[in-house]
Each structure stands twice: as C-alpha cells, then as structure tokens.
C-alpha cells in the first residue's frame, strides 16, 4: 500500500467520525442546531464521495458530490430564511 492510499483511508475514517458528530448535533432541540449539523454533514459526505471515487474508481460519485455541494448550502440558506421569517 502506498502512502497516498493510507492517508485517504485515514481521512475517510476521520470523516466518518465527523459524520457521527454532526448527526448527533442535528438531533439537538433547536431547529438552528439541526441546520448546523446538516450543513457539516453535506460537506463531509461530499468529501467521502470524492474519496470513494479515488479509492474504488467509481466515476459518477463526483457528480453526486457536486449536486450535494451546491444543494446543501442553498437548502440551508432557504430553510434559514423560513426560520427567520420573510
């Protein structure tokens, strides 16, 4: 195993731990805390998908990650506007 693959696996494990932390955050009592957790989760899942693309050679993971990166923050902004009140 080369060092690049090992570091990719280390980053994958760290992102898995971070996903658990953000899901735990998103179950707290206020709605804003849920949005914070899901914003972090979208970034982590996009990075995980890119890592899966490089480790396993699945090319369409990049397209899913691009959709997630665009729609995650836009959904967050929209939902925040709803919470604030128009």
């Amino acid at each position, binding site marked *: 195993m*080369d*060092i*690049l693959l*090992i*570091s*990719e696996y*280390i*980053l994958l*494990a*760290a*992102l898995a*731990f*971070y996903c*658990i*932390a*953000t899901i*735990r*955050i998103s179950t*707290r*009592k*206020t*709605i*804003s*805390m849920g*949005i*914070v957790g899901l*914003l*972090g989760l979208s*970034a*982590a899942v*996009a*990075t995980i998908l*890119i*890592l899966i693309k*490089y480790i396993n050679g699945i090319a369409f993971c*990049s397209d899913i*990650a*691009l959709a997630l*990166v*665009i729609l*995650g*923050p*836009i959904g*967050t*902004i929209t939902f*925040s*506007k709803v*919470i*604030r*009140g128009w």
Partner: protein
Amino acid sequence: MDDIFTLIKSAVLIISAILVVLTAIGLLRYKDDMDLILYARIHMLGVADMSCILALLFLNEPLLAITYLFLTPFASHSIANAYYYGEEKR
C-alpha cells in the same frame, strides 16, 4: 520511492483528517445549556469546512472546492442570522 507531490498530497490529507477529528471532538464536547453555543458551533464548523475544501483541492476537484468555498460563508451567516432574529428572540 514516491515523488514529492504524492508526499505533499498525503501530508495535506492527514492534516485535514486531524482537523476534522478535532472539530468533531469540539462539536460534541460542550453541553447544550451553555449560552450562545450555536455561534460557537458554527465557528467550529468553519474549521472542518476549510479542511474539506483543502482535501478536495488536493484530490484534483477544484470545481467542488471553489463552489463550496463560495457557498459556505453565506450558509453560516444565514444560520446565525436566522437564530438571532428567529429563535433567540422568542
């Protein structure tokens, strides 16, 4: 023997992993009954966002990295704004 670019790429990915783990520990560490904990968590989330952007840049995905770099500050600001004018005032 790996070339120098592979070594730099590996080092950046490992640094990103360390920063992501530190962010996860920071997110879970503080209790909910602290005052203004949401702003602190938004601030902590910025570290993980930037390390994800760094990892995406070094994984040859500049489109994703730049898109996320431009969209994340707007999202963080809108969450804080919604909490300030929406939930905190209630």
